[in-house]
């Protein structure tokens, strides 16, 4: 009995070959090739005493705990079982060869010199990935997902989204830190629409640039383990936007479409140790975040080129009707612009328009003014007239006359738009008691 060293090829000869083999001989060879190979044995020369069922002399071949046959005889013999050019291939990396010769090789008193055999073996790569090559019938596949054979071995790989585990065989869903930065895309539970694995702690993060708002749309089918009485006790799909939870979902009714109003969305998918639901799939899109439609605070406010929709980085300009001032708090503005910010708010609040007030009219020395309009205020379009203290003074006006109007610029102006007020000049030579002679 000899252990054949682990070589990739070799030769096995019967004892004394090519001389006739001795009688009463049992020789055993255990062929062992490296792992990842199988043994392929071929007889180059085979000459043994033929007998019925190879009772006398024989070569027995065994591999993988199975008999591959018992052989004897010589080419052309009517009895025996000559292997011919048959290839003996093991399923494993071992093959057992046993030679047995009985006490004689006489045939009708004549010694016939049987030479024995010469066999060659070689190590043939085992394609571990071929299920037909399984050593045992109930042997499990070598790889859970993908098997890759190479000479002398094989390795496994996994589907996208799965990670090969330490046993180099099984694949576990890899979804704990999935990051999405494109403007739109798809995300789903592992293996969707096939049932999702158990014991998942998936975290899908959508991170877009500021100013964008993510919209989620659930596709069909939507199926997450649930319970009729208790809300999502087994598996949960949680959606968070900017750290704030939007909702927790399970069941078979799709959540439909969700507007997150955020550029940062996290989707957590937690599963327990069992279940057979098909999972979920989301198509996400993004658009510039929207700001509220600007609305004037009063009827004197004008929003230039009002648009039906305002989004991030859009702006609007506000002005007032003639005779009104733009006011922000107590401050008068020359202009106003508001920009839609990344968080969907306007960077300034809508201002208001206040009627222009010209203030008190300039007092006229040696005269006075009176309001023409009933309201008697100093607001835009109010009117006053100046007069002098007659008969001692007379009024001298510009070409614009003595009537002044509160203008849109906040000044009192005459009919010619001039701000200079009239003057009261002395009336000369008009005594109240002129000399009148009575006596003649």
């Amino acid at each position, binding site marked *: 009995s000899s252990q054949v060293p682990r070589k990739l090829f070799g030769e096995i000869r019967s004892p004394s070959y090519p001389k006739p083999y001795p009688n009463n001989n049992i020789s055993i060879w255990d062929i062992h090739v490296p792992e990842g190979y199988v043994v392929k044995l071929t007889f180059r020369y085979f000459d043994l005493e033929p007998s019925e069922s190879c009772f006398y002399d024989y070569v027995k071949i065994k591999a993988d705990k199975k008999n591959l046959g018992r052989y004897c005889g010589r080419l052309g013999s009517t009895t025996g079982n000559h292997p011919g050019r048959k290839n003996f291939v093991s399923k494993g990396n071992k093959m057992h060869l046993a030679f047995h010769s009985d006490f004689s090789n006489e045939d009708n008193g004549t010694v016939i010199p049987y030479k024995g055999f010469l066999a060659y073996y070689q190590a043939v790569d085992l394609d571990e990935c071929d299920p037909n090559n399984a050593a045992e019938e109930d042997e499990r596949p070598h790889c859970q997902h993908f098997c890759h054979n190479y000479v002398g071995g094989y390795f496994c790989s996994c589907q996208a989204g799965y990670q090969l585990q330490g046993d180099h065989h099984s694949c576990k869903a890899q979804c704990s830190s999935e990051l999405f930065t494109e403007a739109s895309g798809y995300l789903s539970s592992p293996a969707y629409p096939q049932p999702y694995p158990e014991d998942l702690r998936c975290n899908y993060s959508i991170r877009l640039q500021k100013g964008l708002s993510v919209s989620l749309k659930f596709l069909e089918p939507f199926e997450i383990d649930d319970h009729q009485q208790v809300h999502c006790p087994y598996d949960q799909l949680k959606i968070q936007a900017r750290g704030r939870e939007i909702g927790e979902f399970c069941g078979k009714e799709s959540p439909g479409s969700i507007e997150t109003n955020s550029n940062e969305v996290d989707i957590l998918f937690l599963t327990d140790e069992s279940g057979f639901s098909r999972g979920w799939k989301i198509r996400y899109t993004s658009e510039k975040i929207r700001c509220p439609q600007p609305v004037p605070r009063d009827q004197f406010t004008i929003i230039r080129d009002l648009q039906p929709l305002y989004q991030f980085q859009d702006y609007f300009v506000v002005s007032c009707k003639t005779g009104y001032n733009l006011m922000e708090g107590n401050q008068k503005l020359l202009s106003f612009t508001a920009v839609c910010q990344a968080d969907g708010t306007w960077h300034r609040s809508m201002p208001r328009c206040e009627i222009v007030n010209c203030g008190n009219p300039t007092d006229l020395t*040696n005269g006075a003014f009176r309001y023409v309009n009933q309201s008697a205020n100093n607001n835009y379009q109010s009117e006053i007239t100046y007069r002098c203290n007659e008969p001692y003074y007379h009024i001298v006006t510009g070409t614009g006359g003595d009537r002044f109007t509160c203008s849109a610029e906040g000044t009192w102006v005459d009919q010619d738009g001039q701000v200079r007020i009239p003057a009261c000049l002395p009336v*000369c*030579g008009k*005594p109240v008691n002129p*000399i009148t002679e009575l006596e003649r």
Partner: protein
Amino acid sequence: ILGGKSARRGSFPWQALTGIHGRGGGALLGDRWILTAAHTIFPKGALENNVSLDQLAEEANVFLGHTKVEELHRMGNHPVRRIFIHPDYNPKDEHSFNGDIALLELKYPVSLGPTVLPICLPDTTNTTFYADGRMGYVSGFGVEKNFISNDLKYVRLPAVAREKCQSWLDSKKRDIPVVFSENMFCAGFLTVKQDTCQGDSGSVFTVLDTASGRWVATGIVSWGIGCAEGYGFYTKILNYLDWIKGIVGED
């Protein structure tokens, strides 16, 4: 004022009472100017004429708004900002009152009313105001019957033709000749005791312009030989309109 009457309040609202070198008169122009005679500021032959105009303005007293001297004083002085003396006036020449005209600018404009109103100046083209016999009125706080008056008086006098004025002046045969220039006119009577006198200097001779219905100052009480002994002599305002307007403005 000799031979005159007491003025009612509101009849001569332009009348000013001045106190610079003794009592004098003046007339309100506009709401901040007093027209008066230069010699009330720089008397002829006075020793203290070396004082500056600024100093004189500081010390000048001007009263407006009443016919009674006591009331005028009670009502208070109107401070003077500046004094303008006509450049033709020569205080050292005691023979000539040519250029006897001055303007006082008040510091603060006065509020006009029934008792304070300005006098008008004549139109440059109208010379009829000086025609022989043209009646005018002069008011003043000057001497009346040897006593200085405490009330405003007025007298009605006719303007006199230049020849008559000169003729009368020539007849007086004074040792010291006095110039009757073209910038003067005379008014009054030779025998009627109605005239202006000391203390009336600076007051204005006024006539009623019937076309406009306004009283117009045509002269300034300037000089005379005694009082009510003949004609009185007045600065002819018509000849000084450009000078006046140049100072007070076109208003």
